[in-house]
């Protein structure tokens, strides 16, 4: 299940796209171009990249309020995604969803979700649907460490295990539910240990090591497709920015600079870049070219979003219901 050379380069591209996209949002948000709330994924890129690399376009994901990384990794174009964050008509949800609700049915993205723990039951439903329809699709469900204290986590784990649903539960453990650290939310060290209660495998991986995430996800997806049921993968990682843009001093009220810096040293992209160079998978120059291409694509997406129109006010009243005869 080792990734091929092309797959390794792909993982790098995905992680770097997420990083550069999010860094651009920092700037755009500060300048007031991106309205609402922006929960950035910087520091956690290896999780989305590693998991989505083992999924096909037909597979499903459910995402979270911190969803940009998942959406990019699952393959939504940067243009409609950026436009959505700007609230423009050309956005993937016509500007009606925004950062916390980006969805792309063509790519199996069943929505970011503004409700912590909200995506878990939806993911098992998609997996159940695949089982009913006998399609061999898998659903991957991203959620944070603190969502595992929500009832939906336990209900979904139980139902998925009971019915052997083809779902992979991916806990992105960044150590905090907004400002409250894990130790103040639960006495267990590893969310993965909760899998025992539902008779499914629970594994802990270094969420900043994209190959480790990839391998764990590949194993879990294989198990799901074989009809053997769900897996819980806990990826230990860290968010570098505050809970959302605007969280004072990147969360200084509840965590130390030292802690943030320690994790920055474990940067998933820096680590992986080193590995690619050391293993001679890519040259420095090749990676620089990739970086430049990504930067350009992001600039193009920003230009696309800026030039796009806002939806007309009348569109507020559209898409509330599916009209009779409307093709879906």
């Amino acid at each position: 299940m080792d990734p091929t050379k092309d797959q390794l380069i792909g993982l790098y591209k995905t992680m770097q796209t997420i990083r550069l996209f999010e860094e651009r949002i920092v700037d755009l948000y500060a300048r007031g171009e991106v309205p609402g709330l922006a929960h950035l994924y910087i520091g956690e890129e290896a999780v989305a990249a590693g998991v989505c690399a083992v999924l096909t376009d037909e597979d499903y994901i459910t995402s979270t309020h911190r969803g940009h990384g998942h959406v990019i990794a699952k393959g939504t174009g940067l243009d409609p995604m950026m436009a959505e964050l700007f609230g423009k008509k050309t956005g993937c949800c016509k500007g009606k969803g925004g950062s916390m609700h980006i969805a792309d049915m063509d790519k199996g993205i069943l929505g970011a979700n503004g409700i912590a723990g909200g995506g878990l039951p939806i993911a098992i439903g998609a997996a159940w649907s695949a089982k009913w329809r006998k399609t061999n699709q898998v659903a991957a469900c991203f959620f944070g460490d603190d969502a595992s204290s929500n009832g939906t986590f336990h209900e979904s784990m139980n139902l998925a295990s009971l019915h052997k649903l083809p779902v992979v539960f991916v806990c992105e453990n960044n150590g905090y539910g907004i400002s409250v650290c894990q130790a103040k939310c639960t006495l267990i060290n590893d969310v993965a240990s909760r899998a025992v209660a539902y008779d499914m495998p629970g594994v802990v991986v270094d969420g900043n090591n994209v190959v480790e995430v990839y391998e764990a996800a590949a194993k879990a997806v294989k198990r799901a497709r074989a009809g053997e049921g769900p897996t819980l993968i806990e990826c230990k990682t860290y968010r570098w920015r505050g809970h959302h843009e605007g969280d004072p001093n990147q969360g200084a009220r509840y965590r130390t600079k030292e802690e943030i810096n320690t994790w920055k040293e474990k940067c998933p992209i820096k680590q992986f870049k080193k590995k690619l160079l050391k293993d001679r998978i890519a040259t420095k120059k090749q990676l620089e070219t990739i970086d430049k291409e990504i930067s350009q694509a992001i600039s193009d997406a920003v230009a696309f979003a800026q030039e796009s129109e806002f939806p007309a006010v009348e569109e507020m009243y559209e898409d509330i219901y599916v009209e009779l005869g409307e093709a879906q």
Partner: protein
Amino acid sequence: MREITYCDALNEALRQCMVEDERIVVLGEDIGCYGGIFQVTKGLLDEFGPDRIVDTPISEAGFIGACVGAALTGMRPVAEIMFIDFTTVCMDMIVNQMAKMHYMFGGKGCVPMVLRTNIGAGRGTAAQHSQSFHSFFAHIPGLVVAAPSSPYEAKGLLTEAIKNDNPVIFVEHKRLYTTKGPVPEESYRIPFGKAEIKREGADVTIVATHALVGAALEAAEEAANDDIDVEVIDPRTLSPLDKETILSSIQKTGRLLVADEDNKTCGFAAEISAIVAEEAIFYLKAPIIRNASPDTPVPFSPPLEKAYMFGKEVLMDSVRRLMAYA
């Protein structure tokens, strides 16, 4: 036409739809070998098997959310929540997920699922098994709220709910399950947003829901003895609401009584009253009257529960009060 019960009419709708469409699955608590708490799913497990008739653990948020995910991805699930009171434990899945996906996704993707549940006091089951807060769901954009008042409506509306691409809160009524009425054997659909004028009249309009439609028709019979001509309108769906039928009736009668079992404050009766006040006040000859449940939890003690409930007599009294205005 043959007569069957409201319960059997619902059962028949489910069965006929399931035979026709393999994408339909039914999930809920005790809906399998038990046949559902009110026997609506009786016999379906034997006919369709445990893959399509799924007894769930007591995990309302889990299985309602699963229905949302399944509906988004090509299935047409029908979920049963044993009592409307229990929807509160899965309210996020209903209000934030089921209702809003189509909108939040910019019109891409839809959630063709039905959540069947029921309202109504009168069974001595007190404050957590007897409520009638169906109005709440009509408050949420994106949901269809169906309110069948007879076996005929039960079958036709449920068939429509299952075949419709929108998420539907299908609100049945406990006391109606055993009532009988004429129901066609073949499958048929009652369109959403089309009220039914159950009885035509010129003096008073009663807009009634659920079991109160029957009570309103009885009141109309009695009123006829006093030469009062009552029109009875059953909205059939609370959302979408057929305002036009109600407003044209008011233009004719000039008197409105709304009869609905939700609590009076902010209930469905308040909404109908507000619409008529906003859009047809100059046609009114008398103040609007709401007959709704008192603003109390449903009490347990039999005399208290009896006092909580109302029917023909209360409606009749309201009709007379309306007629006191020339």
